[in-house]
């Protein structure tokens, strides 16, 4: 057992961090609101870096790495709060080679969702609809949707659909199970990155902000909030890494259990840490200007994708 990152994994993580910080600084991320969260040139840069082809075997023109590495990549994307249907496109690329290198932006929807609210409809090339029978492909022109002009997460536009067509089958029941599991782990990884980013944002603020003649970060009433945030992020990160490793090597555990534990811990950490970051910013935290609310809103959104904290807690209960 060596549950620390290998040198290659450290390099991969640092490389993606540089790319994400360079191409998606928060000013740029905020600007993406105007284009529905996705700028195709930036999307292509992510694709060129291998973000969507990471787990595709080298023989099939992929990068040939595993879920452990993909989790590291998505953790970094989460730290920078990169918008767009990243997880959906990565898992879709396992079925659709066109998604792997940036040619298609793919959205995803559970057929049983109610109400039928779908993300990113105006920027995707394809919507994959999941039900227990399989994976179904629908093109946006086959869908009639009403835009909801005040999306909760400003970087994730949403439409309300009256109905979803059956679509063309692109995966069987086994594929849908696999996609859900992979999507759960990658979403959890993204949430862990967000939980870390808001912790760092809050730490920087409380070091500099002075009241009563001292940095507020010296007060235990404030620093203990930060300690809890760092702890939640760290514990959730361990769960996410374990899920990645377990999916790659099922002999070390149950991938379903590991994925659900990761989503429970990461979903909880992301929401609570974002709220903690807002709280220690005081009134400023309630302004549009401080980034913490964007993390909170994404964390709320991602709790509705690939199973909520409640859903995965139920899954785990039934495995007891």
């Amino acid at each position, binding site marked *: 057992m060596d549950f620390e990152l290998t040198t290659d994994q450290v390099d991969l993580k640092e490389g993606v961090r540089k790319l994400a910080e360079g191409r998606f600084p928060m000013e740029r991320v905020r600007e993406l609101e105007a284009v529905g969260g996705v700028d195709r040139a930036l999307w292509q840069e992510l694709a060129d870096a291998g973000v969507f082809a990471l787990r595709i075997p080298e023989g099939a023109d992929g990068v040939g790495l595993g879920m452990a590495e993909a989790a590291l990549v998505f953790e970094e994307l989460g730290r920078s709060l990169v918008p767009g249907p990243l997880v959906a496109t990565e898992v879709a690329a396992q079925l659709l080679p066109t998604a792997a290198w940036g040619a298609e932006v793919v959205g995803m929807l559970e057929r049983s969702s109610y109400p039928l609210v779908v993300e990113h409809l105006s920027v995707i090339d394809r919507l994959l609809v999941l039900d227990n029978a399989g994976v179904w492909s629908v093109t946006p022109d086959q869908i009639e949707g009403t835009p909801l002009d005040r999306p909760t997460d400003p970087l994730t536009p949403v439409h309300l659909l009256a109905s979803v067509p059956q679509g063309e089958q692109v995966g069987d029941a086994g594929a849908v199970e696999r996609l859900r599991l992979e999507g759960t782990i990658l979403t959890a990884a993204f949430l862990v990155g967000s939980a870390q980013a808001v912790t760092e944002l809050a730490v920087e603020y409380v070091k500099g902000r002075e009241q009563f003649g001292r940095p507020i970060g010296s007060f235990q009433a404030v620093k203990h909030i930060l300690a809890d945030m760092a702890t939640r992020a760290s514990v959730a990160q361990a769960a996410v890494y374990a899920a990645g490793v377990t999916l790659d090597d099922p002999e070390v555990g149950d991938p379903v259990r590991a994925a659900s534990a990761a989503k429970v811990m990461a979903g909880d950490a992301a929401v609570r840490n974002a709220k903690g970051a807002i709280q220690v910013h005081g009134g400023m935290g309630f302004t549009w200007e401080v980034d913490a609310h964007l993390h909170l809103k994404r964390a709320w959104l991602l709790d509705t994708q690939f199973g909520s904290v409640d859903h995965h807690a139920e899954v*785990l*209960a039934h495995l007891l």
Partner: protein
Amino acid sequence: MDLRDTESDAAFRAELRAWLSEVLPGIPPPPPEHDFEARRVYDTAWQRTLFDAGYAGINWPIEGGGRGATPAEHLIFLEESERMGAPYVGVNFVGLLHGGPTLIAEGTPEQKAFHLPAILKGEHIWCQGFSEPSAGSDLASLRTKAVRDGDHYIISGQKIWTSFGHVADYCEMLVRTDPDAPKHKGITWLIMPMHLDGIDVRPLRTIHGSTEFCELFLDEVAVPVSNRVGDENDGWRVTNVTLSFERGTAFVSEMLQSMALVSHLASLAKRLDRWDDAGIRRELGHLSADLDALWALTKRNISLATRTGTIGLGGSVFKLHYAEMRHRLGDLAVRLLERASLSLNDVGDLASGRHIDGEIHSISVSIAAGTSQIQRNIIAERLLGLPREPAWTSS
């Protein structure tokens, strides 16, 4: 990142399992929890069994008489011992986890030769004389004084939270040898034999109803200067050599026990017709996630220790989250068991007693070995680099 046993770890696990399955059936049932003399006999007999099989001091260095196991082997030892129901370290705790490792790092050749084999064989039980009524989280403000008189220190004062003090042979003592120096600079670390005149041991009754803790009242106890570990007034540094030791693996057995408690609570929920209660189910699932995450974090800490020799602040992160989780687990047990929670005995055939026992125990987890508030200070100041609060205590 990889979670598989290496070939040698797998061999170690197999060998340990084989030995445990051979030896455990012959172990008598544990004595009643409140019979400390019997617990001493039971725990030290198990320690001797471990010693004879080469498993005593599993993580102690070979030159200290230990097995010199890697951190991963140490974790396997704790995991297999817990899963297979081996006796817990019990009264040997302070000697094996604090006193012994301190002597290995800082003791004289004579101290090592006399004490280390006796700890490993279960012949000597140690207790801890660190905390005082007015020195808890602010341990360095301790006031028990030691005055040099020829080749002895004459010790007077009071110690508290001394686990197993009434059955111990030796006490690791922190005393103030220079009352005028800054508080961290006037402390000395001594080995105090518990049979000396002037030591009055009074058990304290905990909320558990047990008397595991003691108070020590010390009235001019004469401890030979040759029992000093490290230099005079250098005791704070000596203490810190092993304070971090406890936070690495000390809670692994408990954490694995908690996993078993969660599974057992799920079965009780089904028997008590509470499984339809989504609130109960989700909290069970959430606790299961917390425990799996803590187990993963332990493996990350152990892997870091293998690479760097230290787990850094991972122990504080683990301890803080473990304590929070353990409180929630106890609370859920009480909620779920309802009127079966009214006794520490098993009620009927429910095997409910262990859960109420656990709920009471859980309250100590956020206090012992550094309160959760102190852990938060450590994480905030040392991991996140936040400024310290001004110190209000003397110098």
